[in-house]
């Protein structure tokens, strides 16, 4: 036990003597989580706050184009800039000056009205209420296309949300036009409300939590766990560098001649670097709770969850340290350990769902994701932060993280023993 304490003390001294490294170890993850959350938060808020300028070419000048225009204006997401020419709008968007141009085709309103009227008349004639519409009139109707020009650099998610929004608006306009057409056929009094055109089905999002304390997911609740975990796993870089340095200084060689086990040496590093992880984690929580509101971000909601959050952080930290110990044991130079460690963490983060949610990954990647300790850690954090679960629900993920630590540490010891067996 005394040897373990001495090892811990030595690691503390080594870390404390590297003030620059220590600052990077604590400050950079904080900078990372603040930066990412600010960026993500602006994306979350774009619907409400950040107006995206878009070009509008109205060749219809009718009721339908007015409805779409009003719908876009009402969404408060866009600043609409009118343009007369289709080609000018296209040119500006394709050069990247604007992200989107919407071109409404000529005669869209009259065409839609005519099409709906024909359909309604056709339907009523089936009931013997109207004369049948000649076939030639039906086929004369030309289909209309609302043309969207996107800047090629525009992300697919943005494109899809715009397309869905416009599609929804067009569908609503079409439906209302149908109602109007029926109404005009049935009564001459335009003020008489025969149809209730309001949507019958609406949806309500229920978030997990107690009745009084509902958890509303926001950019902070999503980003802090994801990027905190990312930062925790980045501990493998300084840890493996620390071990490789000991090899190059010859101190590891000396320790091999001493009556001390490799487990004790690794134990000292584990305790110290786990403490670093937990301090990092505490700072991140503090930033989320106290600093984010100053930046205009939502505050991180941690009330009643802190013990469980730290429990998850301990196991995630152990998994990260296990990986760092293995990398430090196997790597021979800093040139091997640092780039590999950094890249590997990024790969694990990608697989773990830090950037792209696992459920939208291809099946094969989803299967691979199950092997990433960052996936287990992220799920455990989301369970606590967003799903409001108890300790029993996170035990499977904690067990996997701990098993990962045990396996990686055991491999490190076995590798070291095998390499240095006498």
């Amino acid at each position, binding site marked *: 036990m*005394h040897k373990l304490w*001495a090892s811990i003390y030595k690691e503390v001294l080594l870390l404390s*003597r590297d003030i620059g490294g220590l600052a990077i170890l604590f400050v950079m993850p904080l900078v990372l989580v603040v930066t990412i959350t600010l960026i993500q938060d602006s994306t979350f808020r774009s619907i409400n706050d950040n107006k995206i300028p878009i070009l509008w070419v109205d060749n219809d000048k009718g009721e339908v184009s007015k409805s779409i225009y009003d719908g876009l204006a009402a969404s408060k997401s866009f600043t609409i800039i009118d343009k007369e020419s289709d080609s000018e709008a296209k040119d500006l968007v394709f050069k990247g000056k604007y992200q989107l141009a919407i071109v409404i085709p000529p005669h869209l309103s009259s065409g839609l009205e005519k099409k709906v009227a024909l359909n309604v008349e056709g339907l009523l004639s089936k009931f013997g209420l109207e004369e049948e519409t000649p076939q030639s009139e039906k086929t004369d109707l030309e289909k209309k296309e609302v043309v969207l020009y996107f800047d090629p650099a525009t992300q697919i998610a943005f494109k899809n949300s715009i397309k869905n929004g416009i599609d929804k608006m067009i569908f609503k306009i079409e439906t209302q036009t149908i109602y109007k057409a029926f109404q005009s056929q049935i009564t001459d009094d335009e003020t008489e409300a025969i149809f209730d055109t309001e949507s019958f089905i609406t949806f309500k999002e229920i978030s997990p939590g107690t009745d009084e304390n509902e958890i509303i997911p926001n950019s902070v609740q999503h980003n802090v766990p994801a990027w905190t975990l990312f930062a925790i796993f980045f501990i493998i870089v300084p840890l493996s560098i620390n071990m490789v340095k000991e090899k190059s200084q*010859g101190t590891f060689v000396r320790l091999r001649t001493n009556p001390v086990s490799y487990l004790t040496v690794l134990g000292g590093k584990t305790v110290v670097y786990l403490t670093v992880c937990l301090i990092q984690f505490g700072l991140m929580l503090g930033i989320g709770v106290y600093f984010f509101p100053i930046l205009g971000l939502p505050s991180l909601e941690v009330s009643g969850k802190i013990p469980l959050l730290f429990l998850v952080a301990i196991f995630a930290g152990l998994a990260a340290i296990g990986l760092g110990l293995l990398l430090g044991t196997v790597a021979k130079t800093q040139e091997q350990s640092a780039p590999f460690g950094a890249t590997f963490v990024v790969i694990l983060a990608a697989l773990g769902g830090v950037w792209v949610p696992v459920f939208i990954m291809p099946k094969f990647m989803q299967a691979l994701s199950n092997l990433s300790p960052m996936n287990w850690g992220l799920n455990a954090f989301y369970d606590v932060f967003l799903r409001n679960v108890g300790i029993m629900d996170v035990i499977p993920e904690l067990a996997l993280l701990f098993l990962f630590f045990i396996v990686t540490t055991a491999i490190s010891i076995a590798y070291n023993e095998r390499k240095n067996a006498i």
Partner: protein
Amino acid sequence: MIQISHLSKKYKNNAEYSVVDLDLKIDQGEIFGLLGPNGAGKTTLISMLSSLIKPTSGNFSINGLTFQKNANQLKQSIGIVPQEYALYPTLTAFENLYYLGSMYGLNGKQLKEKIHFHLDVLGLKKFSNKKLDTFSGGMKRRVNLIASILHNPKVLFLDEPTVGVDVQSKNVIIEHLKKLNAQGTTIIYTSHHLNEAEQFCTKVAIIDHGRIITEGAPKELISKYPESHNLEDVFLTLTGKALRDHA
């Protein structure tokens, strides 16, 4: 007593053996010098004896103990002064020694007293709280030595302990080693300083191409080769004057 029997070592990717079927017996209380040109196999032999590398074949025991059966007991009874400093540059001399002494199970007041004693004897007392990276080569060599003798080893292996140090440092180191030997520590040391070895060692072995080509007390060897006036002459007679550069 160190008993070595048919000890051989061949490194991966090396065509030749670095140590070949070596038999050697070193008595307790001896100051035994392993001498030889570059690449002769001295460091390889010491590395095997100190558990740093695995022999390809053969075996050895130190005071009846082997690494296969009594690894911790054996490690506790030996000390190794490696050729490189093998110390933490950002820790002070005291911190380095306290940590490395702790690895031998020493602690508390007893350890602190030992550290201060050796630092004092080797002229480093006033630098005990200075970081190693501010030390000169000679000072680092002395700390390197202290780190290996805090636990009073019965056998001390030294790989080039005086390389790159000034005459004063060399003198302090040698004198301290003599004192340790007088207290019963067996010393096995490699060196290129043949004059130093001639004065310091009670017995030497000259190794070349992984084999011991001669061994005995320095004076015996000098008298054995009539044209030799000192150990260096014996050395050159036996190993030749050709350069031994290795890449």
